[in-house]
């Protein structure tokens, strides 16, 4: 243990290739071991919650795309769910199926990003990332054909979806879903038994179960620590109770478990996707009582949450009877998951701090809003 004067304080970030956005970590190092770590963020703070108080409910929908900018369709769904709870709108069945299909596609492409970035942080400079992005491009092409934009989709509306599936989209989506397991097998062959991966991720950044629950960690990080809590199964929002959803759980809660949980979740998502594409019923796309302009929900409040790819994404809305919300709050999974970053990194090497941050899977658009 070094004396007080021999500790080195390093500011990792905000311009740093591995910090997944404008994020800073003030680490105090003893040699190469981390003694203290304080995360600093707010560089991307746009005060989205205040903008929403002066915009209509519909006008906030494009802004929710920009929260977790990788997964814009699940952000849209969470907001639409909260507003539907607030106003009591019913969603038709075809729209529910389309929501499930787009949410699972979003989960697939988000986890592709994550496994690519995590491996790049470990030093596999670009190869697994580009293989993952090759698959992600196919999914983004599907999004562009459906919504018009690759990332900022602005697709869900209160009471359903904006526009119906174009011709041939279901065939293309089925093709993507059928080719996806082949990509996963190839990826596993590339890296599963790699000794460097094993040495760098197993036993690093363990998160015990009780601390994970107390710190409000959700999503794949929580399930890697062994807690069986998946909001798709607990709340059964949408039509997820029709699908046979298996929840993979981890044993140790280290970085390797978080990585493997995401790969297993991708396989589960492909199964749900194939089933939903087969069962898609015809029908209307949006609740006939939903209004595009002049939408004024009754005074009250609602909290709606979904299982976003990063964790639990919740929207808390208080309505005062006017076209703008009185209070609009986003519960960001990435911010809450960062609470125990310090606990996980204490005593580890500084290079491992980067990998642990990569396995938490943060997106600064969501942390800062």
């Amino acid at each position, binding site marked *: 243990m070094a004396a007080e004067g021999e500790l080195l304080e390093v500011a990792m970030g905000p311009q740093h290739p591995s910090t997944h956005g404008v994020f800073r970590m003030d680490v105090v190092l003893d040699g190469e071991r981390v003694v203290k770590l304080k995360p600093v963020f707010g560089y991307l703070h746009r005060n989205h919650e205040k903008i929403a108080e002066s915009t209509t409910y519909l006008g*906030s929908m494009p802004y929710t795309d920009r929260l977790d900018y990788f997964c814009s369709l699940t952000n849209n769904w969470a907001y639409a769910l909260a507003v539907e709870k607030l106003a009591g709108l019913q969603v038709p069945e075809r729209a529910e199926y389309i929501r499930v299909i787009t949410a699972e596609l979003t989960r697939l492409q988000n986890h592709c990003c994550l496994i690519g970035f995590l491996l790049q942080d470990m030093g596999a400079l670009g190869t697994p990332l580009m293989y993952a992005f090759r698959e992600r491009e196919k999914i983004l092409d599907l999004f562009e054909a*459906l919504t*018009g934009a690759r990332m900022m989709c*602005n697709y869900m509306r209160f009471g359903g979806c904006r526009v119906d599936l*174009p011709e041939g989209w279901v065939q293309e989506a089925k093709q993507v879903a059928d080719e996806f397991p082949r990509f996963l097998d*190839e990826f596993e*062959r590339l890296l599963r038994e790699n000794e460097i991966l094993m040495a760098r991720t197993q036993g690093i950044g363990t998160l015990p179960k009780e601390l994970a629950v107390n710190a409000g960690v959700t999503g794949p990080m929580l399930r890697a620590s062994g807690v069986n809590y998946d909001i798709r199964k607990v709340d059964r929002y949408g039509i997820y109770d029709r699908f046979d959803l298996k929840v993979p759980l981890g044993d140790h809660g280290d970085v390797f478990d978080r990585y493997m949980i995401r790969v297993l979740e991708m396989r589960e998502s492909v199964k749900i996707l194939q089933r939903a594409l087969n069962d898609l019923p015809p029908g209307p796309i949006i609740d006939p009582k939903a209004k*595009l*302009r002049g939408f004024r929900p009754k005074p009250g409040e609602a909290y709606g949450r979904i299982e976003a790819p990063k964790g639990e994404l919740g929207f808390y809305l208080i309505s005062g009877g006017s076209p703008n919300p009185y209070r609009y709050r986003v519960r960001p999974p990435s911010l809450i998951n960062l609470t125990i970053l310090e606990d996980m990194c204490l005593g580890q090497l500084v290079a491992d701090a980067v990998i642990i941050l990569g396995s938490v899977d943060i997106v600064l658009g969501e942390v800062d809003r």
Partner: protein
Amino acid sequence: MLGEGIIKGMTETARNFLGSYVSKHRLVTVQYPEERLPPKEAARQFPFLVYDGDDWRKGLRCVACQICEKECPPQCIYIRKSKDKKPDYLGKAQLYPAVFDIDYSVCMSCQICVEVCPFDAIKMDTEYELSTDNRFEGLLVHVDQLAKSNEYYRRIHPVEAAETDGRLAGQKARAEAKTKADAEAKVKAAATLNSAAPTPTP
């Protein structure tokens, strides 16, 4: 053997590298700007105004109702109504926009203006090569740059344009049928009135 996993991984990389010479599936890049991928049917970039016919001043569908200005989330549209009226495709006299400015540097391509427009006057373009050298006014477009013909709209979004054209033609047909029915009813009413009215006795 130590390093076996790494060697297995390397064979995958080699397969991808050599495979990119023979199979299209492994070579996924496009040499932009010599090659360009065709945009999808629904792709959207920035809005533009549609006009029917050849002269944009006569055929502009926009009637300056200012709904898109109110609903735009970042408030990038600026409209000023005209003082006089001109006839639209149904023959009714409507206002038109004297000033219609969109600030493309503020616009976030959310497409809400297209959704709320009741006249199918504003649609999404697919033009994305819009670089300019003036940071503040270079991306502020006025109504003469925004107005593009219906032929152009049909070229970039064939499915959407066909549906819009069908709907507008249906509205026009219904409006014409209604005026014809009204005129016939008036003539019939005048005829019955003439036949039923008693001749005034002096």
